[in-house]
């Protein structure tokens, strides 16, 4: 198998249009609001302003202030109110302006949204979606660039997803809205306009919990999610030029995550390099590494490699140095290949 072969997930066969990731988010919301009267959308500046990144532009005009509205500046209120609405039968989409600002809503996420089904034995549930831009690469310093997904993957009761393509962004958001659980939906902000791709004209979903194989390969499994995916592709290209066949996997969902696809891949290639831009300690990829060594130890020909953010607050001026980047990924792959 050569490094450049692709599977359907890598480039969905569509007859659709090419859009960018943020348009995909807007389309998903609009179509679900059209389809289901229970879907409401709110957050800071989502109405007339259309969101600070314009993800909700035009939606208030289209669906009215009852269904698309600005809230007071309070993430605890936004998340907590979403829980209450969900319990009472709506399908709220709560926008948190930056993932860095989920902090004030953290207690509502982990104490209410995540737990209400369990503690009431299913008598009450909170199916809702918290959408939030995350990750670095936009010169935002530590309060506008963090990748806090591991705080949430650590909390039972929450589903956690992060797309990297317009196709997935749309399909995952629709699936999240049609599901029965609270979903934290991270949007890699540096890909909002950079990631372009086709989406079909017809309705579709991308099931939560299924990874996508972006390209097949036989020498090494390169696994990531979200904002780093273009760097994985670049690294795979660079390695392909050296005759190395890399399998590139986009996890898409962190909770639940696609153990089968990852393990099958690692069993085939014998090497894995895991990439995430979040700080290394307690990074979600640590869980993936653990499962690989537990379930595929006999297949490994090198230790599982990891490329992560540094365990420092996200810096402003050294933004680009902080992020993994293709070179750092290639170096980790070479280390695994030469082991």
């Amino acid at each position, binding site marked *: 198998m050569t490094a450049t072969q692709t599977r359907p997930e890598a480039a969905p066969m569509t007859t659709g249009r090419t859009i960018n990731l943020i348009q995909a988010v807007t389309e998903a919301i609009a179509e679900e609001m059209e389809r289901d009267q229970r879907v409401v959308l709110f957050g800071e500046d989502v109405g*007339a302003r259309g969101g600070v990144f314009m993800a909700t532009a035009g939606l208030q005009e289209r669906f009215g202030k009852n269904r698309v509205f600005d809230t007071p500046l*309070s993430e605890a209120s936004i998340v907590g109110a979403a829980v209450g609405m969900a319990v009472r039968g709506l399908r709220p989409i709560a926008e948190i302006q930056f993932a860095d600002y989920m*902090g*004030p809503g953290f207690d509502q996420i982990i104490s209410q949204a995540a737990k209400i089904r369990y503690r009431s034995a299913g008598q009450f549930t909170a199916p809702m979606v918290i959408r939030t831009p995350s990750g670095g690469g936009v010169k935002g*310093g530590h309060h506008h660039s963090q990748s806090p997904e591991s705080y949430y993957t650590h909390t039972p009761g929450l589903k956690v997803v992060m797309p990297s393509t317009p196709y997935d962004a749309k399909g995952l958001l629709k699936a999240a809205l049609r599901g029965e659980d609270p979903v934290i939906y991270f949007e890699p902000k540096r890909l909002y306009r950079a990631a372009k791709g086709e989406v079909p004209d017809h309705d579709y979903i991308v099931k939560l919990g299924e990874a996508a194989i972006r390209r097949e390969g036989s020498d090494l499994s390169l696994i990531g999610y979200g904002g780093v995916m273009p760097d994985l592709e670049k690294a795979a290209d660079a390695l392909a030029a050296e005759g190395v066949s890399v399998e590139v996997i986009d996890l898409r969902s962190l909770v639940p995550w696609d153990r089968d696809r990852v393990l099958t891949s690692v069993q085939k290639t014998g090497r894995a390099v895991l990439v995430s831009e979040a700080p290394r300690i307690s990074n979600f990829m640590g869980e993936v590494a653990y499962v690989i060594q537990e379930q595929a130890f006999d297949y490994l020909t090198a230790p599982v490699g990891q490329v992560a953010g540094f*365990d420092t607050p996200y810096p402003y*001026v050294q933004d680009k*140095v902080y992020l993994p980047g293709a070179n750092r990924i290639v*170096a980790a792959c070479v280390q695994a290949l030469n082991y």
Partner: protein
Amino acid sequence: MIQPFTPEPIRFVAEDGTPVQPLPERYTPEVLRDLHRLMLQAREFDRKLITLLRQGRTTFYAQSSGMEATQVGLARSIRVGHDWVWPYYRDHTLGLAMGVPMAELISQCLGTNSDSCRGRQMPHHFAAQRQNFVSISSSIASQVPPAAGNAMAQKYLGVDEITVCTFGDGATSEGDWHAGMNMAGAAQAPALFVCENNQWAISTSIREQTASETIHIKAKAYGMPGYYVDGNDIIAVMEVCGYAAEQVRSGQGPALVECLTYRVGSHSNADADAEKHYRTREEVDAWLARDPITRLENLLAHLGHPVTAEERAALIAQTHREVDEQVLAAEATGQPDWRIMFEDVYADLPDHLRQQEAFLRAEQTGGRA
């Protein structure tokens, strides 16, 4: 004595410069001119920084144009370098008026080696130890509980200091705001909370922000006086903030001052199109007519000490020159390198960071990891 909970904002000077109540004697023409100089300097600083932004020499800027009387007035109401300040990100005019050198502000905005915060934070998020001006956090209202704690420490230590904590109107919706206000009230800590109510939180108007008629009345719930002041009238700001600060200093417990003002520009460079999206040109024009700098100029003219066009132009030119010089000086110091990432994370560098630093050094110097 100044009354809390007035139905209308307290003011001393009308838009046309006529005093609406007797001006305390300390406002001599020299004092008023000094205030005018500071306000105009801050306004021009905004203008220049926006130019830098357009030139791509910085990446973010949140102007305080229109809010100069509130910030300069507050700076002049406290004991700089003695009292402690927990500001928010729009407070560079407060910093300038407290004597934070312009060079430091510019260095921070450019993230150069001369930045005392070492390029770690986004532009506009400075800290100044000499002025007890505590590091700015972007996270709205997150400074309020620590400010309460700072004031509690001052009470515990028995020092003759107060803590000043500023925030916008939007911040008053956050749980942290209520938690901090309540804590300070319960502890009867010497904290002066100042709301710079510029009436918009990005695109959310104060009417959508809260059903409270005003911000200052919320003070009642926390057992402290709430003062309502015309934030575009620098004398009113100085009188009310000065009075509230003295009450706080004398052990009366915390106080809240609401300065009613207006941000005439956009929220930041990220929403340069405010008028198109969420507010009307008429509203902005109505507030431009209440401009704090013009009002002070009108007062000076009324008192027979007008600021001449030449004086004004000279002051503007001087500020522009100063900013230009400081920008070049800051840029000449270069950008901090990758090492800054690892310093100040902890008091000592733990092992795992030592390893990561070694890895990055090898990478950055072309060696092997």
